[in-house]
């Protein structure tokens, strides 16, 4: 399935969860820490529309986990609609490098605002754990 260049508001985005502090088992929810932007303020996600869950895990393992300098475990994904990102005045930049990769950009300078945004993104994300 070929994805359009523009990210549709209804598209599903996957944020890979690489640490146990990215999610909360008792409430089956994603924690704000999972959406904390890195130093360059480009939060890495993958566009997952049209993929099976096995494809999602395969991409996560090959494109994320295996490319990290430190050994990591793929715990699961936070599945979030692009509209939830756009509602918070952030933008999804589909750089397609690697294939299906995009970055959430447009984060405010103010750290308290960024913290608030991560809480709102996490509240709207769906947790899918790798069994």
């Amino acid at each position: 399935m070929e994805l359009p260049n523009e990210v549709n508001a209804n598209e599903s985005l996957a944020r890979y969860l690489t640490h146990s502090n990215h999610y909360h088992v008792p409430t089956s929810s994603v924690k704000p820490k999972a959406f904390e932007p890195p130093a360059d303020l480009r939060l890495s996600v993958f566009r997952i529309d049209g993929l099976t869950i096995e494809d999602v895990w395969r991409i996560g393992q090959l494109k994320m986990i295996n490319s990290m300098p430190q050994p990591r475990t793929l715990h699961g994904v936070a599945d979030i609609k692009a509209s939830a990102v756009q509602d918070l005045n952030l933008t999804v930049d589909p750089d397609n490098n690697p294939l299906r990769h995009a970055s959430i950009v447009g984060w405010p300078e103010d750290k308290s605002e960024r913290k608030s945004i991560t809480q709102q993104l996490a509240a709207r994300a769906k947790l899918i754990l790798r069994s």
Partner: protein
Amino acid sequence: MTIVCDALPNSSFLKFPSNLGVSNGAEAIKRQAEELRNMFEQSITIGKHYKEARRSLTKAFEECSVDNWDSYGAKAIDELSCVKAISFSRMLPMHVPVPEIYIDSDGEVTFEWYLGPREVFSVTVRGNDELVYAGLFGANKTHGVEHLDDELPETILDNISRVLTE
């Protein structure tokens, strides 16, 4: 005879107001306050926040002591933020549950109370004594900056209470 006769700010036994005195009496009070604090920190219940903070931060030092510890370009743990985080943990009231402690991608220490997706409050303790906070309580949200002083700011205490009672 000089004895410690001190208010207990925000129900925490572990944080005494700054003692700026230089007299022999003031020095004696300072020593007694330190002895009291050491005694309380040995207590399982009273010193729980402080002990948990020290445990978490010791672990964080091992895991986050070099740049790029998260593989996404994070800065190494900020030592001054750590020192302030220890002070912050001493100020937490005893009835407050022990929060989770994280190191942010900029190296600063964050305390988080997470009960669910819309029941969360977190505070980042900066090396310059700023407390950067954000909370989500049902449909309501808040964020801002407070200054860390001898006592926890009311705003921080109120928001901790808010998340625990949602």
